[in-house]
């Protein structure tokens, strides 16, 4: 059989080639083809990205973790949160929790002992009187809530770094964790734990820490958002295993700096 192309198809072929040639000579159309190819490549790349990361949600989680590192890198123990005068304090201070004030846990201060665990050399539980015997300090700082409000409050207690020294906590640990009487839990980076304004709070506005603001103990960090400032603390631990936190498990950023 002879390999011969019938005349009408040959004509068609020429016509198609001619047409294609014309198209490719037209710079604008050539660009268009190139761009369509690029667009195809881009959508393919996006498809691969989404396939590898699973979904937009996974990408958002990865960026949130990256933001933890970015905030830690920006953080400096020399950067102090601004302090305010007593006349600027919000009275009464705003209550905030995942339950109404009436549901706040009631703890007997006389019986209370703060438990210590993890990488801490001296794990003897602390009574409130013993904490009150450590050097006390006070701060008037702005509590910044992730929900988009802020309020200036007055807190007093022990510099957290002083307390970590007293219990001989391993300061090479990455995290300090908190367990609370209301089921809340939180954790912070060691850099913030050692920040000069990080306070283990015993008093609010000059009085024993009221139930609604976190009796018996609260951690106060003007360098972090409100939800990081755990209340009703019953146990503190040092660890290298990421402990996360109550709101962090619900999608909020872990570093939570302000």
């Amino acid at each position: 059989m002879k390999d011969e192309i019938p005349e009408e198809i040959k004509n068609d072929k020429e016509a198609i080639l001619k047409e294609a040639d014309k198209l490719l000579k037209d710079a604008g159309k050539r660009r268009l083809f190139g761009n369509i190819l690029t667009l195809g490549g881009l959508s393919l790349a996006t498809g691969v990205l989404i396939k590898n990361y699973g979904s937009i949600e996974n990408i958002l989680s990865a960026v949130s973790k990256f933001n933890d590192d970015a905030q830690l890198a920006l953080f400096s123990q020399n950067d102090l949160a601004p302090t305010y005068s007593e006349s600027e304090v919000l009275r009464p201070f705003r209550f905030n929790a995942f339950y109404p004030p009436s549901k706040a846990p009631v703890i007997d201060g006389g019986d209370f002992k703060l438990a210590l665990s993890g990488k801490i050399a001296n794990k003897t539980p602390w009574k409130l009187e013993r904490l009150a015997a450590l050097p006390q300090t006070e701060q008037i700082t702005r509590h910044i809530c992730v929900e988009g409000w802020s309020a200036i409050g007055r807190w007093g207690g022990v510099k957290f770094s002083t307390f970590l020294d007293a219990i001989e906590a391993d300061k090479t640990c990455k995290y300090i964790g908190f367990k609370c009487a209301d089921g809340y839990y939180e954790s912070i980076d060691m850099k913030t734990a050692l920040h000069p304004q990080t306070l283990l709070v015993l008093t609010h506005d000059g009085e024993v820490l009221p139930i609604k603001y976190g009796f018996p103990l609260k951690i106060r960090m003007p360098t972090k958002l409100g939800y990081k400032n755990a209340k009703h603390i019953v146990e503190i631990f040092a660890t290298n295993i990421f402990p996360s936190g109550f709101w962090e498990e619900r999608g909020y950023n872990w570093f939570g700096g302000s």
Partner: protein
Amino acid sequence: MGSNEELNDIHPLWLRIIHWANAFAIIVLILSGWRIYNATKFLGFKIPKEIVLGSDLAHALRYHFAAMWILLIASILYLLINLVFGRFPKQFGGISIKGIWQDFRAALSGKLPHDDISKYNMVQKLAYISAIFAIIIVIMSGLVLWKSVQFPILRTILGGYEAARYIHFGAMTFICAFIIIHVVMALSVPKTIKAMIWGR
């Protein structure tokens, strides 16, 4: 596809990439920002939940703090490239109040020429310069809201932490107004859209 052809582009490739990256980031930031605003509604009104991005506050914050990197990086690149190549005077130079007024009146009467879209008219120049400033302000106030302790000078310049919240919202509102006018104008002269996509 010689380099000559590339040089003749109305908008160079780098600019087109930055434009669309920022357009994407700003839309994500605005829509998620509306959900973040709704958590406290400090101005008293609520933004309908049908038009916000993020199923809850945490979700909206994740979008916001992811898209912010795109806006930040693209905007820094935009400023750097323009400054290095001295492009700002070429694009936005010669602006005058008289010129703006003349071009504004011409635009209203539909007499503004669109033959050469590579040259901005005075109203365009004003709009784009304002948008650039609004983006700079929205980024600066955003940094103060995100990390106020780490940016004390910026916080002081903007009048404190709470003031930054209003400035951030105000700059967002300005950018929204810009986007609406910008999109309407671009749609009315479609070849400008083509130029921002394909370069010409």
